[in-house]
């Protein structure tokens, strides 16, 4: 209770400082609109549905691509950790591609898939896949060998060992990898949406882009606030429960 009060005061003061800066008239209100204008934009955008639609379009692209990236990355990461050959080939490729900022995939995706949903999906998958793969590989590789030995003495082998021992034992790495994958996917999708206009749906990135074209700073700041809120919400809904579980079981911060 006390903590939420502190947080409330902090964010209210931020808005207060913002208002003071606007009232001081250091910058033109076109460049720095008052908070009430941003609130008004958000309210209007909520009413006409453009915000809800933008959020929906963006989240759909993000979640689908992210899911596919994780589903491919997880088994591949386990595979590269277990096999020397895969580690020397796919592992090196993944390491290289992971260092590539995922927005760099956008031009390639546009040439391959055109201005389509497929291009967006491709960019998100590329953003997710490699960091998930690397993290799972890393986790499974740095496993204390005693776990697998102990499991073998109890009759565990093959797929059972992989799913019931190696995967849960690397859970901390898996979660941090998925978190990083999420961040990369989110960034690359925003970049792609700002960069490319798709007629199949206007995402949050497009709203941001239109804001700039219309010189509507209230819209730019408003959409940015929404993007930040989604990032925070994802952390709270998707990752915080996992991290709490890890903390409870392992007794250490993940």
């Amino acid at each position, binding site marked *: 209770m006390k903590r939420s009060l502190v947080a409330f005061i902090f964010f209210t003061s931020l808005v207060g400082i913002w208002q003071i800066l606007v009232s001081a008239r250091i910058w033109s209100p076109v460049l720095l609109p008052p908070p009430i204008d941003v609130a008004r934009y958000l309210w209007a955008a909520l009413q006409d549905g453009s915000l809800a639609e933008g959020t929906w379009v963006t989240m759909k692209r993000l979640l689908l691509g992210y899911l596919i990236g994780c589903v491919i990355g997880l088994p591949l990461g386990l595979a590269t950790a277990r096999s020397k050959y895969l580690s020397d080939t796919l592992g090196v490729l993944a390491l290289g591609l992971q260092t590539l900022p995922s927005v760099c995939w956008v031009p390639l995706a546009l040439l391959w898939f055109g201005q389509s949903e497929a291009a967006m999906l491709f960019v998100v998958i590329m953003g997710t896949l490699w960091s998930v793969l690397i993290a799972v590989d890393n986790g499974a590789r740095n496993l204390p060998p*005693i*776990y697998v*030995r*102990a*499991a*073998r*003495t*109890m*009759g*565990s082998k093959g797929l*059972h060992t992989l799913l*019931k*021992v190696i995967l*849960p*034992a690397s*859970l901390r790495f898996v979660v941090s990898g998925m978190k990083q994958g999420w961040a990369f996917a989110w960034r690359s999708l925003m970049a792609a949406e700002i960069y490319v206009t798709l007629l199949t749906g206007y995402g949050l990135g497009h709203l941001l882009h239109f804001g700039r074209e219309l010189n509507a700073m209230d819209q730019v700041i408003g959409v940015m606030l929404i993007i930040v809120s989604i990032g925070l919400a994802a952390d709270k809904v998707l990752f915080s429960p996992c991290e709490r579980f890890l903390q*409870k*079981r*392992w*007794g*250490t911060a993940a």
Partner: protein
Amino acid sequence: MSANAELINPPPAKLVVDRVTKSFKSQSGWLKALDDVSLTVGEGEFVCLVGPSGCGKSTLLNLIAGLDTPESGTLSSDGAPIIGPGRERGVMFQEHALFPWLDVLGNVLFGLQLKPSLNKAERIDIAKYYLQLVGLGRFVHANVHELSGGMKQRVALARALAPNPRILCMDEPFAALDAMTREHLYADLQDIWAKRKKTIIFVTHNVREAVCLGDRVVLFSPNPGRIREEFRITLPRNRDINSVELAEHATLITRTLKQHNTTTNTSE
């Protein structure tokens, strides 16, 4: 099958190690961890393997557990050759090796879940029985990191016992614990051994511990790893590690151990 049926003991196994040799590559060349070692362990016998580090006692335990394979020679339990790890041979390591992603009950259930003849309720009954047996009935849902070192080894013991193995291999399981905790566990392990009728192979470098627990103490010597001498301990059970008779036995064995060390040192 019911939980009660599962809890009934199969006859403890007889173990035969026949002329086993095993070498490891070290920086200074090949090291003979075991050189032509033979050992027969009777049904329900509690055998302690003792010796200085590098004498091959843990190597032999790993071979019995099936975690490693010998270069030459054979191992068999109840006439069946040992070719890999198996549920009929439970293992307890020096580190507790408990799985931190499972709670205490989940750890004990791990091996039971690989027994297809049981249903879920039976598995839980059996796991709880063994947690009760090691004195942790109240910690069923605790997380591993919340337990003390001694409690973790108790869980590890329950986990090794739960699939009802016929042989229990223990690799210095109490070495990392404090003296008080260890003494409790000596008493409990003797009780459990009497109650659950297992063949136990117990590796230690602590001679007193070996005399306290074993029917037989097998003394190893290093470079190359060989069995030097065997001692049969006939002291009445349960034995107290602090008793005078036990200390006398231990002194005798320690003397043999030292004698060997001096002869090898002068010959080198």
